[in-house]
């Protein structure tokens, strides 16, 4: 008979302090987290150094395993060996002002170019006006004006003489010129004119007409003259400007001769200075364009000071190696940069100096770390990232353009070539969803760095965990941990892993425990943290969050929730479920009952009927029908209708871990054998009656233990668990103690037969060669009952039989 409870040492996979060769963690070489992620580190190093396209990285794993820390460690090391990438600047595009051009400059020189350009503008502002105010310039300008004037006056004078010879005067009116008949060198008096004979008046009219026409012809040549004059002035201005600006720009060109891109830019600047030299003159000096120029200056939208500025988008001054950028807010603008605006006479305007870098610019040539959940939560950001990686360039697009209604006067900056490695950090679910739903994802993020959530305790795992504790203690300046305390931490790490042979790799949880232990040790006045402090910290954490557990257990103890922990009942078994509440879980017993009657072979799951049961739960129940049919009625109809229910369960039930309990309830109901109520069971079954491992075994055992302890342990109580779960046992020390004292028991079973024997105290019975079951066994009683039901069914189905 294998129904012997597990010995206490099997209930908790203790960490033997004698296996930890140190006194306190101060003796240890501290381990920098993350913990036991060698595989992930290797994958990450591969991803970070693989230069081919599409080898961007997705670091996936549960929260708290140290994804960010490992990423930061690996990337910082890689980046330190990489060259410092270029500076990036935006400058004005003289050909297409709405498309600012970019300049790629050696690291740290962008700022120098900006300074040089601003010095150039300053010098131009001083030198250009000086040149245009010089005596020489004024003389030349005067000469040009004079020439125009003389030409014009000369021509008018000539015409005037010609007119006078023919008795016609050329008169200047307020708005123009006129011709009039002349007498004695002056315009004729009207009266005198009227007294002239008719033929004389006729003659004068003819002369007037001729001179008038000649005058008209002359005046019509004036605009062309003016234009020529303006051109001459402009050409002269250009010549003067070239004289001043030429050598200033040349000087700069020499300084930047090693960078053809900059030289080309300086050439365009030189040409622009010559074309727009008036912008450097203050316009108050009676220049013909005085007022208009002043207005332009006031509006100042496109002034030289702005046009010749250098917008250093990315400055690598002081950077050693490649940049590693973690963008906390990966919004559209946070990634690709943005175009700012400034208020200008009541409207918003922009130019290239208002372009601002995004994380892609800053990380260009290095590494960009992004939290995948955050980037997915930001409008446009995910598409922005993929577009940038796919096209290999960063394009600063204002969001309104992405939405299809481009703002007036907006910019389209030259896209900047992009060469960087993106490391997404996120959970596994999002990785799966992205792989499944985003066809571009797999092509761009080829390296999956999958973090472990647990690691073996063997092969030095416990020692490394001890060193991790030492690392946390050192980093956070906490108390050292005694060896016993570390052993207790290891045990808790195993409990968190839900596996006696493993420990969790969730460094965050370990670190929390270490910190809380330090706090407890401080309260207890211990200079070095002891095992008792670890336990105190764990107990305190439990107390902080166990309100719901207390209330649930209290309701059971008080009898509000009906769970028997003593006596025996037919068709009634204590099942165990796990309640999960915000990252914390606890076990609670539930009463499962079964009723049977004549029927057509269905097992009715009441939870499912009312849609309180999930699909896995239903699957477990349907398996039961398979078990009964296969074992007891392979060659006859199963004339049974059984109903199963989780009593007093008003929330949903999911999972198949109660299917063995349901089966015991059914067997008990059919065999009419009472089940011991001091025992709770967990485990799923298959159609052959084998009991299979389930999750949350520790919480379940402890949940029942807590209820029994409240009611008083009588030494008969215990829990039946699947044998497959034995390795997962990391029960609380108090449960282990009660077991050692014989006041509580944990049995493991492989088959339903083993379980039913424990529950009923009656042998299950093995199938005999003749197809029958041993007399008095549970199976024999079930078989007999099912046969009786089948017989009864036959009676009802005979012709003429009543329903």
């Amino acid at each position, binding site marked *: 008979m294998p129904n012997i409870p597990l010995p206490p040492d099997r209930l908790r996979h203790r960490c033997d302090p004698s296996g930890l060769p140190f006194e306190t963690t101060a003796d240890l070489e501290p381990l920098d987290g993350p913990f036991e992620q060698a595989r992930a580190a290797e994958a990450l190093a591969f991803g970070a150094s693989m230069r081919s396209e599409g080898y961007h990285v997705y670091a996936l794993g549960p929260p708290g395993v140290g994804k960010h820390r490992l990423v930061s460690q690996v990337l910082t090391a890689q980046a330190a060996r990489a060259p410092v990438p270029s500076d990036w600047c935006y400058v004005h595009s003289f050909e297409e002002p709405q498309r600012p051009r970019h300049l790629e400059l050696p690291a740290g020189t962008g700022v120098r170019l900006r300074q040089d350009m601003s010095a150039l503008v300053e010098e131009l502002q001083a030198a250009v006006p000086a040149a245009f105010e010089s005596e020489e310039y004024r003389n030349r300008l005067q000469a040009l004006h004079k020439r125009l004037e003389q030409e014009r006056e000369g021509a008018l004078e000539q015409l005037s003489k010609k007119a006078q010879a023919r008795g016609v005067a050329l008169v200047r009116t*307020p708005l123009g010129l*006129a011709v009039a008949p002349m007498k004695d060198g*002056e315009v004729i008096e009207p009266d005198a004119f009227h007294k002239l004979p008719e033929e004389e008046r006729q003659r004068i009219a003819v002369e007037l007409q001729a001179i008038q026409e000649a005058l*008209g012809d002359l005046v019509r040549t*004036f605009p062309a003259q003016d234009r020529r004059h303006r051109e001459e002035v402009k050409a002269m201005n250009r010549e003067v400007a070239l004289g001043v600006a030429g050598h200033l720009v040349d000087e700069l060109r020499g300084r930047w001769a090693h960078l053809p891109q900059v030289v080309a830019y300086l050439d365009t600047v030189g040409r622009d200075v010559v074309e727009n030299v008036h912008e450097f003159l203050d316009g108050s000096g009676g220049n013909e364009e005085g007022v208009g120029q002043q207005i332009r200056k006031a509006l100042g939208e496109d002034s030289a000071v702005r046009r010749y500025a250098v917008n250093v988008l990315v400055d690598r001054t002081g950077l050693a190696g490649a940049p590693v950028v973690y963008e906390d807010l990966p919004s559209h603008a946070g990634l690709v940069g943005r175009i700012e605006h400034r208020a200008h006479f009541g409207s918003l305007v922009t130019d290239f100096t208002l372009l601002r870098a995004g994380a892609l610019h800053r990380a260009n040539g290095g590494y960009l770390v992004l939290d995948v959940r955050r980037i997915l939560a930001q409008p446009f950001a995910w598409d922005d990232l993929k577009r940038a990686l796919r096209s290999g360039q960063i394009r600063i697009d204002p969001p309104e353009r992405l939405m299809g209604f481009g703002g007036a006067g907006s910019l389209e900056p030259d896209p900047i070539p992009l060469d960087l490695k993106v490391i997404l950090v996120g959970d596994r679910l999002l990785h799966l969803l992205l792989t499944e739903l985003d066809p571009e994802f797999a092509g761009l993020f080829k390296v999956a760095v999958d973090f472990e959530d647990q690691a073996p305790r063997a092969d030095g795992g416990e020692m490394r965990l001890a060193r991790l504790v030492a690392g946390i203690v050192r980093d956070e300046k906490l108390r050292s941990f005694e060896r016993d305390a570390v052993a207790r931490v290891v045990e808790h790490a195993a409990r968190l892993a839900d596996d006696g042979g493993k420990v969790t790799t969730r460094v965050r949880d370990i670190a929390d425990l270490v910190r809380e232990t330090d706090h407890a040790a401080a309260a207890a006045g211990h200079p070095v943290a002891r095992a008792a402090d670890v336990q105190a910290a764990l107990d305190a954490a439990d107390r902080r969050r166990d309100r719901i557990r207390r209330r649930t257990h209290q309701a059971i103890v008080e009898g509000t929730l009906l769970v028997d922990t003593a006596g025996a009942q037919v068709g009634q078994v204590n099942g165990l479920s796990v309640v999960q509440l915000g990252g914390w879980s606890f076990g609670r017993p539930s009463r499962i009952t079964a009723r049977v009657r004549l029927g057509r072979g269905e097992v009715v799951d009441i939870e499912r009927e009312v849609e309180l049961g999930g699909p896995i739960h239903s699957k477990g129940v349907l398996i039961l029908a398979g078990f009964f049919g296969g074992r007891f009625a392979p060659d006859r109809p199963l004339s049974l209708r059984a109903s199963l229910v989780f009593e007093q369960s008003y929330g949903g039930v999911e999972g198949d871990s109660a299917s063995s309990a349901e089966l015991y309830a059914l067997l008990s109901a059919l065999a009419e054998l009472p089940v011991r109520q001091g025992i709770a069971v967990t485990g799923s079954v298959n159609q052959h009656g084998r009991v299979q491992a389930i999750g949350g075994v520790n919480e379940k055992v402890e949940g029942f233990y807590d209820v029994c302890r409240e009611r008083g342990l009588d030494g008969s109580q215990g829990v039946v668990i699947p044998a497959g779960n034995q390795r997962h046992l990391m029960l609380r020390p108090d449960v282990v103690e009660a077991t050692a004292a014989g006041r509580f028991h944990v049995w493991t079973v492989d088959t339903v037969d083993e379980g039913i024997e424990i529950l009923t105290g009656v042998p299950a019975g093995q199938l005999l060669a003749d197809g029958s079951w041993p007399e008095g066994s549970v199976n024999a009683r079930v078989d007999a009952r099912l046969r009786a039901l089948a017989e009864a069914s036959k009676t009802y189905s005979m012709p003429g039989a009543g329903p």
Partner: protein
Amino acid sequence: MTLRTARRVVVALDASAPSREAARTAAELARRLGAVEVTGVFVEDVNVVRLGSLPTAREIRLPEGTERAIDLETLETELRAAASRARQALAHEASVERVAWSFEVRRGPVMNVVLAATGETDLLVLAEGSALFTGDLLERLLGAARSLVLVAGTRGRRR
């Protein structure tokens, strides 16, 4: 008489741009010389007035070169407008220089009007390139002037 003792500065004005420059020069001189006031004399050329009364009167406007018939009434209006602009220009320059000013309009042959003005002042300012002094008028005037005459060019622009 010397410039140092000039008590009054007269400037001959018409509608043209150079005469506004002359107003500026006159106002500045008045201040520098400590003159009592600067007087603007707007000269209405009698030839223009006569022209308006002739049935044949036509005008070519500047700078566009269009031709139109004109009458006395139109001319008078335009002369008044030009005088008003000249008055404003003088007022402005005088206020800049903080000197007293007066303004009058005189009609007649240009030579007569301006020559008469030289008899009433210590210093007469004329604008070089003014539309008033066509042909040899300026030379004749300088020969006959009874006061100092300053022909203000456009060269002396201040920045």
